């Protein structure tokens, strides 16, 4: 996944905590080896290389992950779509011609993007692509998936207080530090940005900044809108807090969809709490929605901001 993961655990026995942390990080390494696009030997690379010409049998966990991708794709009206694989290099977000979009390649890739071209066979637990050239890129959900797996390792080993993060954009908070309601995580660099209070939940933040390309004189961020086959523009930042066994996976995927849509879609699960700065005005304006929104997102009372 090409990023840094960190685990902070709280407990009494140092040696045991270290072992739990190592096991959690080993789980993340394991998923990285399976889902990385950058490893030629990964399971994902094998899927992308073969699924256009035959069904590829999967293990239960990987199959479930692709089913989850399909659910968010449907719920977001296609704003989240892991089949953007061919678009990423075309736009210059991979090594091939980094930073320089190739418009002809973008147009060709746009023709094959769409999760409707991914067939998931429940009975065989297999995947097949219906269009040649299709490729899955799990960059918008893989970190969350790996964090969920790592958090399960931590919980299963009886540790109830800790923070796990990947790439400083996905966080799982277990329990809370002493005398705190939860793990306090600032959403973005702006001093007026919300502070998420994460307790037995996951937080994911999506923003277009980071890797950038230039097209027709305009800088464009790395989050693609699969519906237009172009980098999404406008929204500055989207954050999602989710609960449950696959909370980080859900938060990761839905924060991308929210950033692309710039509005909470009807298909988004009601239990998710969202914070969105659409970028409609020069100063950040935050729309915060969902159950206990005011509790899980603390918003500084500066002017120009509102809670939805």
């Amino acid at each position: 996944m090409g990023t840094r993961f960190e685990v902070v655990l709280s407990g009494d026995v140092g040696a045991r905590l270290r072992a739990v942390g190592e096991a959690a990080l080993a789980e993340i390494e394991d998923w990285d080896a399976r889902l990385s696009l950058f490893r030629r030997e990964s399971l994902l690379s094998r899927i992308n290389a073969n699924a256009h010409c035959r069904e590829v049998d999967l293990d239960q966990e990987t199959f479930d992950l692709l089913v989850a991708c399909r659910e968010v794709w449907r719920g977001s009206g296609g704003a989240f779509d892991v089949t953007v694989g061919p678009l990423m290099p075309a736009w210059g977000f991979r090594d091939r011609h980094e930073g320089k979009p190739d418009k002809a390649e973008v147009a060709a890739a746009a023709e094959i993007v769409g999760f409707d071209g991914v067939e998931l066979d429940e009975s065989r637990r297999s995947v097949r692509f219906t269009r040649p050239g299709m490729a899955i890129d799990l960059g918008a959900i893989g970190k969350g998936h790996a964090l969920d797996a790592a958090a399960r390792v931590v919980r299963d080993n009886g540790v109830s207080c800790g923070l796990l993060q990947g790439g400083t954009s996905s966080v799982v908070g277990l329990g809370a530090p002493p005398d705190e309601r939860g793990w306090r995580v600032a959403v973005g660099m702006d001093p007026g940005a919300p502070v998420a209070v994460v307790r037995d939940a996951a937080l994911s933040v999506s923003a277009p900044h980071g890797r950038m390309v230039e097209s027709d004189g305009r800088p464009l961020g790395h989050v693609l809108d699969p519906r237009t086959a172009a980098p999404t523009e406008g929204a500055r930042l989207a954050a999602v807090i989710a609960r449950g066994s696959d909370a980080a996976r859900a938060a990761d995927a839905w924060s991308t969809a929210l950033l692309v849509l710039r509005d909470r879609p009807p298909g988004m699960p009601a239990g998710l709490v969202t914070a969105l700065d659409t970028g409609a005005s020069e100063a950040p304006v935050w729309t915060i929605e969902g159950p206990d929104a005011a509790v899980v997102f603390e918003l500084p009372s500066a002017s120009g901001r509102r809670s939805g």
Partner: protein
Amino acid sequence: MPPADRRTFIKTAAGALVAVPLIPELGWARPYRAPARISVGVIGVGRQGRAILGELQKIEGVTVAAICDTDASRLSAGQRRTAGGETFAEYKQLLEKKKDAAAIFIATPTHLHRQIALDCIQAGRHVFCEGPLASTVDDCKAIAAAARGASTVFQTGLYARSNPVYQLARSFYKTDAVRTLVSMRAEDNRKNSWRTPTSSDEQDRALNWHLNPEISLGLPGEMGTHQFDVFHFFLGRYPTAVRGSGAIRVHNDGRKIADTIQIDLAFDGAVGVGGPGSGGAHLQYAATLCSSFEGRHEVFHGEAASIKLAWTHGWMFKEADAPTQGWEVWANRQQFHNDEGITLIADATKLHAQGKLKEGVGLPNSPMSYAIEDFFKSVLEKKAVVCTADEGVRASAVGIAASRAVTTGETVALDPELFKA
């Protein structure tokens, strides 16, 4: 790939020391497909067993019919990594009920290998058994005796022997590219407690077996055996004596197993002869769980060139007076530490024409995958076994001796009879 035979060496000085990465033939990049469908079982689905499951999943034609582990949480985690494989807590039940599992992978704690391997062989299954083969020489010999008497395939899991990078490097070594061997060294540096989190004393005894000196070979046996075998594989010889020491440097959590070791393995005078009366070359080995700096690697330090191997990559460092070889023309130039090195890629002409020279750097698949592929080639295509049970005995015997040397502080002599083919 033209062989680097001695005749092609031209005695001219050729500038600074250069690093030449060793890249295998392109054919190794292709995913293996079993020529016939085969069902397999995996006994022991801890971290190593789950890694095996991950590799099996990628091979078309292979079905994991069953997995086995005495730990319920590991069994559950292992099952999620299969496409419907049946689970067993007792391996004998697996052998009894899943007769379609023609091949069995054994990835249990080392001291449990013997009985499981014997029962698998007795049940007529092909066996892939992780190295070291067992934790005592007697157990190793018992497994090898059973394997020799069986019509099924038995492969010891010592991965260097199947690793294309190591095979390529060995071909250079065998054609005298390094000339006189000056010394040998190997390291395995990790930052890891080697401890598995557990919730009961019983589970702790089962899962943290490698921290129990009564049954574990410690770092020399569990990690060192695989690296010692690299040198056996290249030299075709085995050490005559081993001495070592160990200490607990960082992980002072009540364990009795050293977290840092140094070992000296002495080879006889036929290895690295520098002249009449000179002694044989030594292999200096160090391993630690306290620092990951420099990772895992093996080095053949030679008069004309040195070879460094690091699991998925390999380099040849040529001395200034080593001859230039034809294949270097197609190689990439790359910065390697403070020197500009030459990236050597087999089939470089083809890659160059395709503009893919950079993509050829590094092993395209995991080292484990090539060992598993070799196993299936032996089972399904009747190819010779790349690492037999007898080879496993020899390699494990060195690891066992090294473990004893570190534990006792004594020099342990290795019986030459043990290494006779």
